[in-house]
């Protein structure tokens, strides 16, 4: 999974992200903090959804299945918005 062309201001535990490829329809930034930040920050071109889910399940000491479902749902939104390109997972 890789990120699309974005502008990003990152600080501890928070990212404000502007989608540079879709400025006409996404005119203001998205803000990721908490679990959304933890997912976003791990989308770095080296990790799969499963990798991220496993890391977050360990981080939050949460059930793996639930975390995997949350990661999938969030990443699906990011893909639909064009913030992430996911060539690992076939389109649903």
């Amino acid at each position: 999974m890789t990120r699309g062309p974005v502008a990003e201001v990152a600080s501890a535990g928070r990212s404000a992200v502007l989608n540079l490829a879709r400025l006409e329809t996404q005119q203001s930034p998205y803000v990721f903090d908490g679990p959304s930040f933890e997912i976003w920050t791990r989308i770095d071109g080296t990790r799969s959804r499963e990798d991220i889910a496993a890391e977050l399940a360990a981080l939050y000491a949460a059930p793996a299945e639930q975390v995997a479902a949350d990661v999938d749902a969030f990443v699906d939104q990011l893909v639909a918005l064009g913030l992430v390109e996911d060539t690992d997972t076939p389109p649903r």
Partner: protein
Amino acid sequence: MVTHGDFSHAEASALLTALAATVAQEESLRAIVIKGEGAVHHQLREPRASGDVDLLVAPEDVDRLVARMGHLGWEPAPRSELALAVIDHSTTLVHPDWPCTLDVHRRFPGLVAPAGDAMAAMWDEREAILVAGVAVPIPSWRHAALILAANTLRAGLTEPRDVAEIRYLRRAIQAAPPGAAAGIGPAAVTLGCDASLAPFLRSLGGETARHAREARTGEQETEWWERVEAGGSMVAIERRHLQRARPRERVATAWRLVWPPLEELRLEHPDLTFDRWSALAFRLRRIVRGFSDFRRSHNPRAKRDAETLERVIGEQES
């Protein structure tokens, strides 16, 4: 859930800088981000929260940039008739979802070389920095220094913040390698600010001081100094606006200047709420301030003339 959320001024400023640079590049427009992030990068100014992003754009590219930003939801801020008439060097763009503004400059006050020539000089020397992960063009060190000096001097150094800033800038230039500082003088001549920034150039001493020009030529330099000497007051600008009005319109123009309509007060001060009485009080205070500014601009001892400014710039801070 992916949501837009609340983003801070600092985040907005950086992201808007990246956005403006991206749009300019996609449209092949010549645009340089001035002040702000570039000034901090060059260590000419301390980092501080900024409410706006400033872009200097080649004059022939301004309309296209403003139109393109319009497609992204950025519209010219509503301005009064007077503001539209006298502030012809820039357009302020606003977006309902963003807490900061984008000032699109076709020229910069104090830099009186033809706008196209000044931009060409700055474009040739531009550098690039990363802002929010995007490569953003900024002026070279010496051009950034001159823009900052002009920005700071134009209110006549009546504000403590401006005094601190110009002194910081002077110290930064004096601490720079001799070769770098030596380029300030010739750049001031090229950009047409050797007269408008004469006190600042003289305060730097040496070869740079020799580039300071005492004689003021042309309307732009005259207007610049009228405003600086009046401590940044709008009185001088308003007087020129009145002089330019057609004779048959002068009485009406003068009346509007002294007693602006309520809708113009609201446009110029969107942060204030006006009813009949608060508008009356505001107008009266404005008249009193106007008289005070007019008296100061004609009082040799209170005038912010070049000699006074040079002394203020060079004074050591306590």
